[in-house]
């Protein structure tokens, strides 16, 4: 079963692995994908990613969901590269477009790399709870705090963002449903009328979202949460009541 944040409940070694290890592993795998250039190297990386999908018990269909959503974009990338990458030794010529083997290979390389990175990203979010992801981001970024980067601010912002996505998604659906009831059939109208219907939703969506932000920040401050407080000896932020 898949939650709105992308997490899928299952029991697998990837689900049990710490978020930090998965984040570092993701960076490592993305570097491997980017560095692999020959078909053999790409095939080896693809085999590794397929093994990860099998181990994760996420399922092939769910692991490929993001990649499937981009199928037309990837097809356009493949066609453009095949026709425009090179004009040496063309298989066929159509005006300024030259279909070449080099162009086809370049297009296939870009598409495979993008697919692998999409599947890796999907695996991370499908096997890591949002809260674990946030604490993982905090741990991964913590060395940067020594350079003066506001790691706590970034971690707080990532955490709030990830937790607000399902809430705002639910609210936007409720607003759409309410509008459908009032105006009947938002989703079945023409493109322009549908777009205008969505635009009408923007103001209530923003007012509702900022109201939630206002309530959350008030609650955090009431509990003494301050971003500028020094770190405690146990590594957690000290929360002082004003």
């Amino acid at each position, binding site marked *: 079963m898949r939650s709105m*944040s*992308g997490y899928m409940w299952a029991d697998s070694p990837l689900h049990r692995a710490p978020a930090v290890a998965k984040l570092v592993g993701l960076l490592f795998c993305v570097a491997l994908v980017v560095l692999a250039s020959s078909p053999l190297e790409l095939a080896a990386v693809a085999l590794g990613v397929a093994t990860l999908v099998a181990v994760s018990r996420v399922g092939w269909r769910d692991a490929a*969901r*993001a*990649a499937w*959503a*981009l199928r037309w*974009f990837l097809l356009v990338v493949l066609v453009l590269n095949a026709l425009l990458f090179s004009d040496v030794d063309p298989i066929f010529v159509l005006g300024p477009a030259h279909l070449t083997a080099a162009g086809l290979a370049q297009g296939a390389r*870009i598409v495979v790399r*993008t697919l692998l*990175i*999409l599947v890796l*990203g*999907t695996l*991370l*979010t499908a096997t890591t709870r949002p809260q674990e992801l946030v604490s993982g981001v905090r741990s991964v970024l913590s060395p940067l705090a020594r350079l003066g980067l506001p790691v706590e*601010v*970034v971690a*707080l*912002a*990532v*955490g*709030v*963002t*990830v937790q*607000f*996505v399902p*809430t*705002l*998604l639910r609210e*936007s659906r409720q607003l*759409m449903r309410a509008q459908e009831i009032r105006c009947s059939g938002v*989703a079945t109208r023409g*493109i322009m009328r*549908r*777009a205008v219907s*969505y*635009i009408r*939703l*923007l*103001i209530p*969506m*923003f*007012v509702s*979202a*900022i*109201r*939630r*932000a*206002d309530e*959350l*920040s*008030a609650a*955090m*401050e009431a509990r003494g*949460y*301050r*971003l*500028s407080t020094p770190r405690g000896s146990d590594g957690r932020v000290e929360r002082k009541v004003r």
Partner: protein
Amino acid sequence: MSQVKRIVIAAVCAALCIVLPMAFHSIPNAGATWLPMHIPVMISGLVAGPVAGAVTGLLGPVLSSLLTGMPAAPMVVPMTCELLTYGLVAGLLSTFVRTGIITVDLYVSLIGAMIAGRVVNGVLRALIFSPGAYSLEAWLAASFFTSLVGIVLQFAVVVPIVVSLERAGLVPPRYPEE
């Protein structure tokens, strides 16, 4: 406005950067023409300042790519640079531009941010992301013609939303009454 509230507003706007494109998903090619991700970034900058705007511009595309697969991985870095500039410049201009009329302040900040973000995007693409393969015509087409509907949408909704937030008492008034 407290620092905590600024960051929470930035994060909520980043969440809207993920949710709004999903809501617009049923309209074909909505991302490139309607620019739904730009609106929360601009609003974050105008309402909560340059740091919040930059945080929203940074987190919105990165987390959206991770959670929904859009924008596609190769587009994330240039898009992040563009959105970060929108948020940062909108926040900076809204801090420094004070004409005494709220709508004029907001429209000046919005237009300044829209121009700065597009210029930064064009320069980065020409010099770093697509060196030698990016022309002035391509920049003009992508920045102004393809996204004309999105630009009109931003003019139509960003300032009214910020004014609505002020009237609802959710953000401090720009010109408090004596």
